[in-house]
Every structure is written in structure tokens, then in C-alpha cells.
């Protein structure tokens, strides 16, 4: 009964509003990675199509076809998909937010050692271990590729 309650509460809690937005890095803030490093993960991605079904497919295809380690599906809600990365005990969970115009990766959770030490209220991670940016930028690059495929921009 307790576990079922946790399932219900978790699903409800993850249902908060999600909305991608153009990335603006506050350069006056100290204790952050470089703008290029942050952008490699969190810069918004134009969708190339307004069909939300195709956008969701592009995101999941991108997760499965990421260079190196596959990102797996953890769940989804209105306007976002949760993607998880596991490698040798290191775990990153990214909240991939989308609408008809943009897709954007936001920090959600991570295991010890990859927790964001300067997390902004909008989910942009200003400071983390370099592995966080290295692993997650591959996911972003893969989603860009697959969005082009589903929107008819390129063929594989």
C-alpha cells in the first residue's frame, strides 16, 4: 500500500509545468562553468516541426541513439520526458522539456559526484563535474540529429 502511494505521489509531483526557453547565461554570477560548456548541454534546440508526436519521437530516438551509452526513459508528463543515464554507478536524470518550437535539456537529479552545485531555478546547471557536461552534451547532439530526421530535414 505504501509503495502504491509513493507511485501515485511521484507521478503527481513530476507533473509540474514545463517550458523550454531561450538560454540566457547570467555572466555576472560567479562559480559557474564557461558559457560554452553550459550551452553545450542547455542551449535550446529548434524543433524543425510543430508536430508534438514527431518531437517526442525525435527525443526518444535521440536517447536511444546517443553516442556511447544509451539514455533510458524514466517517465514523462505534460511537456517533458525524463531521461536517465547509468554508467558505472554514475547516474544523471535529465528533464527534456519541449513545446512546438523548442526542446531544452534541464538538470533533474543525479547521483553523488554529479549533483549540480549551482542549479538555477529554471533547471539550468551552472556548475557540475565535467562528466555531467560531457555525457549530457552527447544526448543533446543526438536529439538534434533525430529531430532533423523526424522533421524530414535529413534521412539516415
Amino acid at each position, binding site marked *: 500500500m505504501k509503495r502504491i502511494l*509513493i507511485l*501515485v505521489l511521484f507521478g503527481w509531483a513530476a507533473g509540474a509545468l514545463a517550458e523550454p526557453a531561450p538560454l540566457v547565461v547570467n555572466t555576472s554570477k560567479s562559480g559557474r562553468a564557461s558559457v560554452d560548456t553550459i550551452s553545450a548541454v542547455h542551449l535550446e534546440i529548434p524543433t524543425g516541426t510543430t508536430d508534438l*508526436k514527431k518531437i517526442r519521437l525525435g527525443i526518444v530516438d535521440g536517447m536511444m541513439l546517443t553516442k556511447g551509452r544509451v539514455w533510458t526513459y524514466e517517465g514523462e*508528463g505534460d511537456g517533458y520526458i525524463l531521461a536517465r543515464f547509468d554508467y558505472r*554507478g554514475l547516474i544523471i536524470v535529465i528533464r527534456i522539456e519541449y513545446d512546438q518550437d523548442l526542446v531544452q535539456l534541464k538538470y*533533474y537529479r543525479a547521483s553523488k559526484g554529479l549533483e549540480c552545485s549551482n542549479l538555477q531555478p529554471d533547471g539550468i546547471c551552472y556548475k557540475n563535474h565535467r562528466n555531467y557536461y560531457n555525457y549530457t552534451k552527447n544526448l543533446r547532439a543526438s536529439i538534434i540529429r533525430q529531430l532533423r530526421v523526424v522533421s524530414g530535414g535529413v534521412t539516415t
Partner: protein
Amino acid sequence: MSNLIGKTLGAAGLLVTLLMAGSINAEPVHPYADPLQFGDHVVDVDAMLERAFRRAKWTLVKESDTDYSGELSYKGFDIRVQIAVGEKALILTLDSVTSSSCTSQCRDLGEKRVLAWVLSLRRNISYVLTSLVRDSLQREIDQTSQPNTPPASRL
């Protein structure tokens, strides 16, 4: 009266915490105990779990419509996990670990190995789930472009 106020404040605190959890989560992720949400993408949970357990080389036992257990006997360890399946999500919990050969001297090493094996099982479940979600989304698009085509059988 003060008890009622305390309960109300406690409930409000829980509500705020849960709402905040939707956008940002400061808690570190648990290696395997976070719920795996499959939503409407999976119709046959049995088939999904069977496929995942086969990939992970674990043994699956169905105990009821909502409860499953998994067993692994490997390198002297006997590991048992429980899987509780809700309407749209499932949770994996470690039930027991026994070892005939491991003494207190190898306890730390044993814990790491067991964690890695349970994590591997969860990863296999989520991998199979991801491929099912992918197929489900592709079918939605195909049905939109060909509205008269009957839906394909779902795993």
C-alpha cells in the same frame, strides 16, 4: 488544536516539497528505487518484464497481478528483488541478499557487486521500456498518417 495546526503545516510542507520536486530535485537519485513510469505506452507488463529479465539473466516470478519477484544466483550470492506494479509505474526494491561464501571481510565488496547487479536489472527493464515507448510513439505517428489502418498488437 495545536496538533491540528501541526498536521496542517506538515501537509502544506509536503505539498510544497512535492510541487518543487516536479521541476527541480535536490535529492540525489537512488540507484534503483526510483519509480519507473511507463504511462500508457505498455499494455502487457508481463511481456516487458519477461524480456527485460531474459536480457539481464535474472529469473522472474509472478506472484500476483501487481507483484513480481526476481531472483539471481551468481558468484555465491542469492539475490531477491520485489517489483510492485501500479497502474502507470513500477518500483523495484531489494528484498534479500544471502551469501554462503562471503564473510564479513568481503561484505563491502559484496555490497558493491549486489548493487551493480540490481542496477543492471533495472537498466535492462528501463531499456526494454524505452524501446516500447519508441515503438508506441512511432505507431501513433503511423496511425495519424494512415487513420484507417488497424492498430498493431502491442507488446
